[in-house]
Structure formats: C-alpha cells, structure tokens
C-alpha cells in the first residue's frame, strides 16, 4: 500500500499553525517585513541605511504615497481596485499649483493663494472620485474599467494643461511650509480621521463587509452604491491632500511628476498587509506601513547600487506575488471540516 503521508499531526505544528492563523499575525506581519528589510539593508550598506538623515528622507518620500494610500484603503476595502489614484493626485497638484501661481501673478497674497490651492485640490479630487463612483454605480460598470478610463482622461487633461512646461512654486514658500511641518500635519490629521472612520464607525465596518460579500451586505441592509460613493469621496480626500503634500515636498509639477504613484500606492496597500480583494482583513494603516516599506525597499536598493530598471521590475514582481498570495479560495470545494 502506498503511503501518501505528508506530515504527522503534531501538537507543535498545530501550535505554530494557530499562531499563523491568529488575526494578530496578519496585522503584525507587515511590521515584521519592514524590520527585516531595514535589517537587511543596514547590513548591506554598513549601517548607512539606518542613518537618521536617510530615515528622514525615507519618511519624507513615503509621505505622499502614505496619504494617498490611506484614502485608497477605503476603496480597496470594498474589493475594488482604483487605477486612477495617481492621475487624480497629479491633476489636482497641477490645477491647484496653476491656481496658486495665477493668484500670485494677479497680485494676490501668498496666504490667499495657499488657501485657494488647498481648497481646489481637495474639491477637485473629491469631485473626480465621486464622479467615478457614480459612473460605476449608475452605468453598472466595474470600478476597474471606470478608473482605467478616468486615468487616461485625467492624464490627457494634465498633458493639455501643462504641455512640456514645468510649474514651480517659489522655493521660499515650500520651505516655509515644510519648516512648519505642514505636510506632516496634513498627513497626521487625515490619518487620524481615517483611523476613526475606518475602525470605529459604521462606515468602515460596512465597507469591509461589502468587500467580504456584497450580496450578504445587501441582505443586511448595506447598499453598495451608497457606500462606494462614500469610499471614493474619502479616497478623493486623501488624493487631494496627497497632492498638497507632494507640492510642499517637491515644489514643482510637470507631466512626469509622480508617474509611478498609482503603482506605488497599490503596492503600498498590499505590502501593508491588505488584500487587493478587500474585505474583513482590511485596515487603514496598511497604506502607511506599506508606503514606508515600498520607499525603504526602493531607497535601500538604490543605496546598494541596483539598476533603476531592475528596481521597477522588482516592485512589479513583488506586487504580482502579493496579489497571488492573497487570492481567495475558489468556490466549489468541500467545507474544510466535514
């Protein structure tokens, strides 16, 4: 008789499996991955990776992705992938920078210009995302397809607005904002708002439940079309604020600005421990921890001299692996216990 033994059930193994299945393991794993990356690059660079100056650079670089990704988790939680997050952020950055420079040119004050820039960025992003959600629910077209169209459309608008030119915000203004930690404050306030909404209110719980099973959610009185709009509006808020953080950080906008933002944001969300399929295992800090991890990975690879094309390849491969690992169990298999 052929013995098809794989492994003997042992109490040690069962204990290890229990740890693996524990909800805290899922939550803590992204932090462990980040620590391992930091440790590995620290060894590879002789400790230069962990120098305070480099860590500050990583944090600053991660801030834009973290802000956009924090908003993005609301959309991903519903089980929808948004491909227009980067294009929306960049367009908001462009339009609001143009408005700011126009006010300065017209003799308006810097304060007025900043307020208008901020308001335009947020309102435009919320409008674009709200419009995308309504298009998806009213026309009954999948979010993915709507956002592919929006991504192309928004990029074309940005190209038409900028052409080959570069908009530059006077450096003394961006320095003044940075010195007052405005970018950190924007991110901090938005992150705190997102945590409360996502983890302590009906909105966050409902978004996760819709991501888990849309039909069941409907039968429990939670309508996808209403909550999808909410998710997109909050996501839009993150993109509008992300645009502001980006302006403070770099001070200039061109058609190549933040070209990899969408990919970075999606990679950050999944690296942060969230499934692209959304659902109950979604958490709002996934975007933040993921953004830091993505940036640390990129920074570390640059420091050890990896070719920039190869870095793009590694990030793409990593994303693919994480999505594959998060694939749901197919239907039609027997219930595990009987």
């Amino acid at each position, binding site marked *: 008789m052929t013995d098809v033994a794989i492994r003997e059930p042992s109490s040690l193994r069962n204990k290890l499996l229990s740890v693996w299945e524990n909800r805290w393991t899922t939550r803590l794993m992204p932090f462990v991955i980040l620590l391992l990356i930091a440790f590995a690059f620290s060894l590879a660079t002789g400790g230069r990776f962990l120098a305070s100056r480099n860590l500050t650079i990583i944090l600053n670089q991660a801030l834009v992705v973290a802000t956009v990704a924090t908003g993005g988790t609301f959309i991903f939680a519903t089980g929808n992938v948004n491909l227009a997050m980067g294009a929306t952020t960049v367009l908001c950055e462009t339009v609001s920078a143009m408005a700011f420079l126009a006010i300065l040119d017209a003799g308006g004050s810097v304060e007025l210009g900043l307020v208008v820039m901020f308001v335009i960025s947020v309102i435009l992003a919320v409008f674009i995302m709200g419009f995308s959600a309504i298009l998806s629910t009213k026309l009954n077209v999948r979010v993915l397809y709507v956002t592919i169209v929006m991504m192309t459309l928004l990029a074309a608008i940005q190209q038409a607005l900028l052409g080959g030119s570069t908009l530059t915000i006077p450096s003394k203004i961006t320095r003044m904002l940075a010195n007052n930690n405005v970018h950190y404050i924007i991110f901090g306030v938005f992150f705190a708002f997102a945590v409360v909404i996502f983890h302590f209110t009906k909105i966050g719980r409902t978004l996760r439940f819709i991501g888990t099973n849309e039909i069941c959610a409907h*039968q429990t009185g939670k309508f996808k079309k209403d909550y999808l709009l909410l998710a997109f509006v909050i996501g839009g808020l993150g993109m509008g604020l992300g645009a502001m953080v980006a302006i403070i950080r770099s001070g200039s906008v061109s058609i190549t600005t933040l070209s990899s933002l969408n990919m970075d944001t999606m990679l950050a969300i999944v690296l942060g421990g969230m499934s692209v399929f959304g659902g109950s295992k979604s958490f709002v800090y996934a975007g933040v921890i993921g953004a830091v991890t993505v940036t640390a990975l990129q920074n570390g690879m640059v420091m050890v001299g990896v070719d920039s094309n190869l870095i793009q390849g590694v990030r793409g491969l990593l994303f693919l692996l994480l999505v594959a690992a998060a694939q749901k169990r197919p239907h039609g298999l027997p219930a595990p216990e009987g």
Partner: protein
Amino acid sequence: MPTKEVLLEVQNMYKNFGATVALNNVSFTLNRGVVCGLIGENGSGKSTVSSIAAGMQPPTKGSMKFKGEPWAPPSMLYAEKHGIGMIVQEAGTIPNITVAENIFLGHEAMFKQGPIINRAKMMAATRELLEGLGITNIQADQPVRELDMQQRKVVEIAKCMYWKPEILIVDETSTALSQDGREFLYSIMAAQRDNNRSVIFISHDLDEMMEQCDELTVLRDGVIIGTVQKADYEPSLIRRMMIGREIQGNYYRDDFDGYSDEVVLKADCITTMEDLLCFDLELHKGEILGIGGLSQCGMHTVGRALFGLEKLVDGKVTLKDGTKINNTRTAIKNRMGYVSKNRDTESLGLSASIMENIASTGYDINRWHGPGPLISNRKEKDYVDEQVKELSIKCASKYHNVNTLSGGNKQKVVFGKWIAPDSEILILDCPTRGVDVGVKAAMYQLMYRMKKAGKSILLISEELQELIGMSDRVLIMKDGEVRLEMMRTEGLTEQKLIEYMI
C-alpha cells in the same frame, strides 16, 4: 446478489485544516454492490474523507486502495476518469457555459479534431447521455445560468455518470432536490447497486439514509464510531452514535397553542417579475407560518419579496403600522430578518470572522453614545458573545473565520445575526438545510421559544415533516399560488400535502 469484493479501502487516514483535526485515524472499507451511507454531525469528517477519495484534496497522512491497487488521485478529473466520481455539496457547475461544456469540463480533448474542439460532437455526446439517463427538461446547449438549482444538480449527476463510476459519491445533494429530483437520484443510486458498483451517500436526513443505504457508517469528530447494517437500523441508536448522547425521538414541537389575530406582515396582491401573480399572505404575531411546495413553486420568491429583496411589479408588502417594505434596509430597520436558503453565498461573509458576521446587524444598536457615529467595541463584543453562548456556536474564538466552521455552526451564526437585534419577524428559507440532527433540534427549540415570545416566523421549507412539525399554519404552493392552507392539527400528514404540491 452483490459480492463481497472490497472496492475501496481507507486506512489510518488523518486530515488537518490548520489547527483543526478533520479526520483522526479513519479506516473503513466499501464493498462492491453496496450503497454505503456516511452519517454524522456537521464537522464530523464525512465530506472530508469522501473528497479525499475523489481526488479533491490529499490526506495529511494515511493511505487508500481502490480495486486492490494503491489509490492517491492527484485531481478530481483523474479520479473521475479512473472510477470515482463525486457530486459535491456546493454548486459544482459554472453558470456562464453550456450544459455540455460543464459535463465535459477538463475533458474537452476527447472531442478534439486537430487543434479544434468539435462542438457538435460534444453536444451529441451530451444529448445521448441526458437521454440515456431519462433527463428531458435540460438541453445540451443551454447555458447553466438558465437552469434552477435542482436542474444544475441534475447536470452534475449526469456529469458524474458519464464516466460510469465504480464508486459514486453523493455529498449532501438531496437537500437541493425536490421530491422528483430525489427520486431521480435514488434511481441512479439503485442502478449503481444493481450493476455491482457502489455508492457513498452523505445526507443529514436519517430517514432518507435508512431507506436508501444498505449500511451506515457513523463518524463523530473525525473518528469512525461504527457501521450499522440495514437489518440493525434503529434511529435512536444511530442518533446516539452520531452525537454521543441520547436525543429525543421527536424534536418537533408538540403543542397546539395557536397565535394572535394581530397581523404583523401582509402581502397585498404582490406580483414579481417571475413566479408570483397577485399573491396574498398574512403573518400573525406569535405565528410560525410554514410554506411548502416543489422548489420552483414560487415559495422562495415569496420570502425574498416580503423582505424587500425582490422587485415588485405590483402590490405591496406592509407591516402592521402600514410601513411599506420595498427594500432590505427598511425591512431591517423595522426589525425583520431573513435567512437565505443559499447560506454560504448570501447569508454569510465566509472570509470574515464570527464576530464580524454577527455584529453586521448591530452597527446602529452598538453605538458608543446616543446617535453618535462611533461604535462601542465593548457593546459589540457583548452583542456577539451573547449569541455565541446562547446558540452554543462551536468555535475556538469568535475571531475565527466563519469558513472554518461546519455547516451547522455556520447556520447558527446566521441565526445569531438576526436574533441579536431582537428581530420581530423572521423569514427563514430552508433554515435546516444541510445541518445535522443536533443542530436541527436546537433550531426548532429556538424557533419555538421565539414564537412563545411573540415573534413571528415565516418558515419556507422543502421538508414537509419540518413544516408539519413546526408550523401553526401550512400553505402549500404550486405555480406561484397557494393551493392548500392547513391549520396545525394532529392528523396532518405528508400525503395530504403532497397531493397539492404536484
């Protein structure tokens, strides 16, 4: 006469799912020409052992022999082709392809002519198969999405039978079938026995098992408890073996208490896109109203329409205060609950925890303070803990995913979800489908307690015994209309009801 040749031998089999031990040193043999029933509570390991034999998953440890040769099928397709076919408990067909494509899924190469699949040949083979099995109401080129649940199961049966399996495994299939569907399945099983082949039959219906099976092998918590031959069948003995304790022979209610005259839910000449035309119904306070019939009679649509899930072309559904129910949100706000017959796809978030599933009906109840937006974690935990305790949901932790639970415990989670918000009206569509005798008994007791507390229950069921045993009033439907209304009386029998169903 069937010979005693051993067809399948399972030896010392273990199967673990994470930390859960589904099979613990299981050994049994299946002889030729035998219909062997596997029976046990949810989570006892019946589906697991049979799915391993059918190549759906490997064991953690252990071995098998099929027709005297070592047997370790790498896939279901392999097992199917080599003599063991299985009809699974869940949906086993793909909706957007044809019946023929479903039947030959994975075996398309059989119809290959050069690089091209000869579709006409595949259709012809399907037609021949369906005709041979006496299936006349399903077309080979029909997309499966156009078929109802029962017809889809029939397609799965046909798919299995194409390969003339030496062992046919029927896993909890009969609950998806109405009486005529069941008769069809039984005839296939009998033919297997007559042709000196075998059947492994899994069902929670003890009467059905005792009638159809030559022997019953009882499993409990992943362990074989014993095998009972037909001559020794004794329901109380088998139940005791299944659950390890004595259970009352009759677990239905035995009172004739009646109910209040107050109408709490009313369907007033409702018409839906399909099934119902000017349908009326009244549900009273403290009433268990049973609705029965064949699966396509429209009874499931009634439940959905009353809960606001079905678009009404005409008519209205109202509560006692005149509130119109036109969507699920209004229904839930007015303390209605609905248990779908499709538990896994409609009533549960399988990848969510027990906590998240039960708490999903309590977001507005478990607020931190007044009408504020924040939810109190403590209140939410209490909300869930109470149901886990009251319903005795077997779980290591309420944070475990629902898909790690057995069918009966999953159904308890669904019940908990609707009992927790103190629902006044419950619409239960086939609530005991696929659950074992112990869970069934617990659910019937719960329904009775709810009735006594003045709650109203609409019980839609394909099991006539259940309707007779639990309902204050039974409606039998056919073609979208009520053909018979019977009050709870001592003389009510299945025969009386069946006449009006068919």
